[in-house]
């Protein structure tokens, strides 16, 4: 296979002005500053001007959005580009699609490139759907004849036939996105660069888009796909490149890199972990909470948990006075405050007497159970039938990604608080 994209030592530097809130300045400021410099020079004609930089260096700072990134992509490969916000993904795409220039390095591209950094670039609200198809097509680099040839196909894909002669400002946002993606989906470049465009539209349309992109990949064209949706990346790409702080962190088969990404998101703070010292801890006369941690593989705290691995919720507490019959109740709540489940360690503690000391109890949530969602952890202490020790409260949240347990080939979020892996059977009557 031929190499179609070759990136060598790519760097991009931005100057950040600390003084300004925006990138642009006013002409007035520029003139005042220039003339102030000039007056200074007039007043002190013999002072060397070399130590008077044009821009005040204290207010600007260099920032490398990309630092010495190199990789190669062969024809027909579908490559996902992943990384946290600010890792340099967008900058890389912008350089690849020639919107901005690299500071250093070199890219060689073999083939017609189309980049889709946004759906509906160039759409004008006053123009009708029909007019916008032509305009957007031209913006994306399609020739007029090509657009004419594919016009019917585009309209059919977009499902907005009835509103073709309505200005797009009257479209619902769903229709708008469908029309915009339909145009983009009918580009026929040799190299397609796509940014997070699948984050828009309803689930059904997203599915259609993913299918279309997969089709594009199977036609031997090269696809570069940036997304935060690990499911989509896993589904669409065969290989992934992970960026972190502007450098290339990993470049391998998609599963490996996605796992690395999910596990690299280690974070401290109130997400995934909470700790208390003696003072300020939720407590009562008998006990006091010490900490709650949500643990993924390797007993580490992450900011995003992989649903295909078990997740442990660890609760640590101090018993101050001897205590009998206490139980801990753990509830998991979805972001709309629906209780996903509640569970207790009552059956293993039983009527056991607890002496003063520090205890730990761990609840294991099995793999392939949770959905792609954010869950809140609620912990309650009490003695059933006698008293409430520490009233249940949500102490922390954690996010789960990568669920595929609902059995779909697409990894969009499915309804429901869980996405358990269930067994399906398929029976075909042969008579």
């Amino acid at each position: 296979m031929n190499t179609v994209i070759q990136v060598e030592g790519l760097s991009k530097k931005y100057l950040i002005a600390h003084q300004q809130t925006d990138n642009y300045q006013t002409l007035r400021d520029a003139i005042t500053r220039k003339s102030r410099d000039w007056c200074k020079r007039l007043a002190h004609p013999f002072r060397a001007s070399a130590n008077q930089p044009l821009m005040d260096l204290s207010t600007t700072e260099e920032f490398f959005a990309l630092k010495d990134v190199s990789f190669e992509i062969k024809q027909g490969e579908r490559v996902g580009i992943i990384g946290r916000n600010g890792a340099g993904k967008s900058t890389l795409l912008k350089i690849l699609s020639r919107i901005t220039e690299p500071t250093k390095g070199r890219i060689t591209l073999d083939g017609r490139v189309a980049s889709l950094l946004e759906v509906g670039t160039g759409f004008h609200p006053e123009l009708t759907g029909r007019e916008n198809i032509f305009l957007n097509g031209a913006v994306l680099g399609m020739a007029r004849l090509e657009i004419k040839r594919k016009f019917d196909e585009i309209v059919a894909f977009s499902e907005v036939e009835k509103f073709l002669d309505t200005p797009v400002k009257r479209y619902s946002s769903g229709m708008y996105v469908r029309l915009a993606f339909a145009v983009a989906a009918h580009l026929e470049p040799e190299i397609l660069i796509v940014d997070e465009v699948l984050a828009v539209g309803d689930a059904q349309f997203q599915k259609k888009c993913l299918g279309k992109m997969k089709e594009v990949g199977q036609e031997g064209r090269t696809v570069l796909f940036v997304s935060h949706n690990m499911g989509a990346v896993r589904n669409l790409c065969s290989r992934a490149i992970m960026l972190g702080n502007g450098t290339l962190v990993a470049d391998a088969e998609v599963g490996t890199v996605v796992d690395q990404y999910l596990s690299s998101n280690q974070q401290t703070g109130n997400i995934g972990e909470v700790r208390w010292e003696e003072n300020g801890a939720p407590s009562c006369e008998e006990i006091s909470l010490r900490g709650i941690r949500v643990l993924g593989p390797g007993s580490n705290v992450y900011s995003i948990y992989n649903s295909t691995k078990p997740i442990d919720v660890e609760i640590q507490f101090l018993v101050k006075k001897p205590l009998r019959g206490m139980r801990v109740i753990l509830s998991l709540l979805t972001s709309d405050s629906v209780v996903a489940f509640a569970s207790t360690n009552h059956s293993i503690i039983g009527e056991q007497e607890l002496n003063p000391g520090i205890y730990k109890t761990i609840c294991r949530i099995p793999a392939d159970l949770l959905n792609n969602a954010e869950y809140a952890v609620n912990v309650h202490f009490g003695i059933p039938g006698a008293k409430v020790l520490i009233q249940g409260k949500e102490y922390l949240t954690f996010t789960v990604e990568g669920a595929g347990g609902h059995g779909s080939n697409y990894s969009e979020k499915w309804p429901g608080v869980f996405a358990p892996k269930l067994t399906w059977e398929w029976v075909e009557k042969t008579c």
Partner: protein
Amino acid sequence: MNTSPNRLIIEAGRTERHYWKDLWRYRELFYFLAWRDILVRYKQTVIGVGWSLFRPVITMVVFTVIFGRFAKFPTEGNAPYSVMVFAAMLPWQLVASALSEISNSLLANTGMISKIYFPRLTITASSLIVGLVDFSISFVVLGLLMAWYRFIPDWRILTIPLFLLLALATAFGAGIWFAALNVRYRDVRYVVPFLVQLGLYISPVGFSSSIVPEKWRLLYSINPMVGVIDGFRWALLGGESQLNEGGFALSVLLTALILWSGLKYFRKVERTFADVI
């Protein structure tokens, strides 16, 4: 790696090398942008095309009454005063509207500039086209006006395309200067309307440049619009209308200078548009 006809190399400073070829390759986008601007321009206006008639005609009437009747300024040759004013309104409207449109064109298309590649000059150039449509409409009005006064232009009218080109070069040269500056310095958008307003009075639109004393004519021609307007009058009014050769040459030279420096500046900063817009 095999070399293919579509091979593209991206390097710091490299974008320049295929610049003019790219500009040609993106000509369809140019048509579509111009078409869009025209469609949008006439879509949601009640009298649509009427606007491009209304403004120059009213201005012409006001100037004729004030300068021709009250101030009793001389006309050029034997042309009626209103025809002389309208012959200047044509290039003036073209340059004024094109200048405003071009200066705003990059900011008005921020979304496209930060999301897609194309030679940025395409957007500025397509903004010229709307002005040309208005110009053609006004030209018909001038024809009607001449017919009304039974004024017949001579062969010189055939040279109009040359002066039209000069007007376009002036508008485009100054326009891309302002457009590029506008990306970085947002107060340019207050400068342009002011310049256009001022220009209407310091350019010989309401009067003939022949009322400017001979010794000041060369200095007066530093305003490139003087050359453009004098050229239009010379071509349209025929007969005794004179062209001040020295002044005209100076105007043409200055226009060329503005256009050349504008292109140079535009291309120098074009690469950073997406970073600062």
